């Protein structure tokens, strides 16, 4: 059910350009530039630095009043030039903001002019994305950036036989590392995009590069159209994206899958990969699956019938909700900050008796929590005020998480991630009961 209030009180979502950064940062040697006023990049740098505990450099075209009146072309070109001079990137992702969109700058055209005028631009790939902040949430920004990136870069060449693994939702660097390990172990060729495993979680070395090492190689991105299939992990309730584009334009079959959280959804990923490769899942992961199952059985009484509120990004909320139903928990509130009908339908199917909120803010979530005798909240740290007010424990999962360590190392995906999550759910409920008795 969509929100009934006019004003948003304590938002459960962010704006479109935020999603772009999480895509662009997962590309080899790529810088992000926001075409807009200086504050957008500074605020999002701050937000992401808090979450990942890494330096986050995002450039801005630093539009001023003059730019807003006469158009921002000069600023954008100067910005691109300085980014190339300062950072020497191989690619620059350019996301618009509400200011740039409303003054009506034609960014692709400005970029073409810049490429024609500027010798420095010759070896740089530019990825312009239209992301007016008022149009939709950060999740849509993420999807659009991924789609534009693929549209801009792919070239058809001879079949490689590889499989494209598109990361359709925002997940942690640890999650990406897990997926890569799984795929490497399986032993088939793949292209994973975007890959933030190193770029947003860099080891401490004696030299600090201007752009963090890692990310999906640009050559691989160009080569996506040569693969034999695409799997989008965490791409079920979003509008068509990069995978659909590759299917439509290059006839590469596309399988959108949910995030592999919980036994069933992990099995679905495994089955898909087996079908596509013809190779069985490595034995190691069969044992891991068995350990997840063992943990779920061990924990089932502790978590039984626990009344929970789950909120955050669409795909992650659905995955966690699915795991909860497998454990015999009772999710009562399933909420996301974005307007998304497919999410509401999927959630309703999973837990028909729950209260499902799209376009939610935390004032609504709090109201529902107080009306429904909730025992545990699960979602980003933005739920902390509600948790404090209602005295209900909050298990922090997903993005953003500014007030606890470990956001980059939180593993939620796969049999192993699901196992950690089961343990965290059980421990949170045990600790809460202990506090109650104290």
């Amino acid at each position, binding site marked *: 059910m969509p929100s009934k209030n*006019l004003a948003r009180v304590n938002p459960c979502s962010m704006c479109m350009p935020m999603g772009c950064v999480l895509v662009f940062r997962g590309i080899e040697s790529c810088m992000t530039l926001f075409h807009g006023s200086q504050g957008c990049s500074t*605020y999002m740098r701050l937000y992401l630095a808090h979450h990942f505990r890494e*330096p986050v450099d995002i450039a801005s075209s630093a539009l001023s009043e003059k730019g807003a009146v006469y158009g921002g072309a000069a600023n*954008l070109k100067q910005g691109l030039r300085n980014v190339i001079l300062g950072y020497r990137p191989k690619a620059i992702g350019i996301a618009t903001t509400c200011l740039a969109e409303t003054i009506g700058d034609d960014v692709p055209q400005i970029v073409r002019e810049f490429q024609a005028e500027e010798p420095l631009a010759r070896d740089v790939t530019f990825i312009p994305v239209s992301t007016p902040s008022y149009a939709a949430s950060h999740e849509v920004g993420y999807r659009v950036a991924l789609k534009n990136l693929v549209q801009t870069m792919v070239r058809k060449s001879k079949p490689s036989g590889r499989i494209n693994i598109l990361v359709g939702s925002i997940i942690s660097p640890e999650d990406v590392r897990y997926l890569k390990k799984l795929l490497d172990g399986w032993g088939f060729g793949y292209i994973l995009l975007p890959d933030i495993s190193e770029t947003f979680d860099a080891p401490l070395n*004696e030299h600090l590069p201007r752009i963090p090492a890692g990310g999906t190689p640009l050559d691989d991105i160009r080569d996506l159209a040569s693969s034999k299939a695409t799997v989008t992990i965490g791409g079920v309730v979003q509008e068509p994206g990069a995978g659909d584009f590759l299917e439509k334009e290059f006839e590469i079959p596309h399988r959108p899958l949910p995030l592999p959280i919980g036994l069933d959804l992990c099995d679905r990923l495994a089955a898909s990969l087996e079908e596509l490769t013809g190779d069985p899942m490595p034995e190691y992961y069969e044992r891991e699956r068995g350990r997840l199952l063992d943990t779920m059985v061990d924990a089932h009484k502790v978590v039984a019938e626990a009344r929970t509120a789950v909120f955050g990004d669409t795909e992650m909320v659905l995955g966690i909700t699915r795991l909860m139903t497998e454990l015999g928990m009772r999710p009562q509130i399933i909420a996301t900050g974005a307007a998304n009908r497919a999410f509401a339908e999927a959630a309703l199917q999973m837990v028909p008796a729950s209260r499902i909120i799209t376009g939610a803010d935390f004032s609504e979530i709090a109201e529902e929590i107080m009306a429904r005798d909730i025992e545990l909240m699960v979602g980003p740290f933005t739920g902390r005020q509600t948790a404090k007010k209602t005295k209900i424990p909050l298990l922090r999962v997903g993005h953003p998480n500014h007030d606890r360590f470990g956001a980059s190392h939180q593993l939620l995906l796969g049999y192993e991630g699901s196992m950690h999550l089961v343990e965290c759910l059980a421990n949170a409920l045990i600790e809460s009961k202990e506090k109650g008795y104290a």
Partner: protein
Amino acid sequence: MSVIKIFEGRERHIQQKGDDCLPLSCNNDSLAGVVSQRACVYSGARVVLNPLTDALHLVHGPIGCAAYTWDIRGAASSGSDLYRNSFSTDMKELDVVFGGERKLAAALRELADRFHPQAIFVYSTCIVGIIGDDLETICKKAAMELGIPVVPVKSEGFRGNKTDGYKAACNALLELIGTCDYTPKSYYSVNLLGEYNVAGDVWHVRPLFEEMGIDVVATLTGDSRVADIQRAHTAKLNLVQCSGSMTYLAKKMEEKYGIPYRRISFFGLQDMASALRTTAEFFDSQDLKEKAEQIILRETARVMPQIECHRARVSGKKAAIYMGGAAKAVSLVRAFQELGMDVVIIGTQTGDRDDYQKIAYIVKDGTLIIDDANPLELKELLLKQSADLLVAGVKERFLAYKLGIAFCDFNHDRTINFEGFQGMVNFAREVDVTINSPVWQLRVKRQSPINSRSDLTMNTGVEDAIQEPCQG
């Protein structure tokens, strides 16, 4: 000659004290593409007004501007926590096309009904400046209808820089000031301007004034309520701490209400003491002067042993300062002198020519001064000057850490009180703890029995003996 060369057009923003060259270039638009650490007009306005605890801060714009500024500052409250919520009109495509005025008017009604605030501030964002919603008229109508002040804040992000945002906020405050009567409880009365009660700072400062027999009428804006602001015109003196954000307001209050102002700082032992003395001297009262000296003597004696202990562990180390405003940067230079440390880099986001002249006057020869820095320049300077410590905000924290440099958060999201006498102890401890942490001695490269590798520590070269930590 430029100190470092990364971006064309930035040469004159970086200077080494001792060079006889042109004045530092400052107070102009940030260069596109260089990743300035500055934010926007809206951010400046938000910083100044947000600590007002029982006001409702409504952001008229898309959700992002409200989401990224939700409860991100450490300004503490002794009363209402309304200001820690995030309110937005969440403008969508249709609002941009047809205008957001009706939505705003309805949102004001809805929020007043749900939250019963003492006043509402309505911040305009970039988009509002472009589509031209008439905030003034809507706010005026809403104020009449709702019976509370509804104040527009002209903070369109692109209309200038953070300093213009400070001004927009001060103008909003001026609409509230003078709208309530009050008789100060003492003949001696002051306002504390540019004091935001980060980590409860003001709770360590206000009692000192009260002990002297001074009524602190209002703090602008840390831990203040709407009613405090409304009666701020009844004080006899304005003490201005964060000069960048509040000098404009102080001047306006002098014009309008005849209240003089003095610049002070509550950070560092010298500055805290001189704030009390300045106040006593202003009122020209022997009694106040004596009380001030008693407090200074007592408090200094109380905190000195602890500070001395930390000083012994940090003196001689090199500090780099990168602050939003110049007033804090200047105060930090003095505080580092008190700790026996050398300042080797100092910079600000919003300093003006006067500020940089003052900075150049108080720092030693060889110190690098930088205006509107960016990560690449900061990195170069930190390495060039072999800084042991960076004092800045969260965006800079991880840069320092990656370079193996200690870090102290002196921005609005710090959680430790640094003002007043006790605050200096906390600051000294914070600096000590980070500089002398054993993590900097850990090897970046593992020593391998089969491969020869370098045994660099993170803090390259400096191999101090571990000292016993300070007690208490």
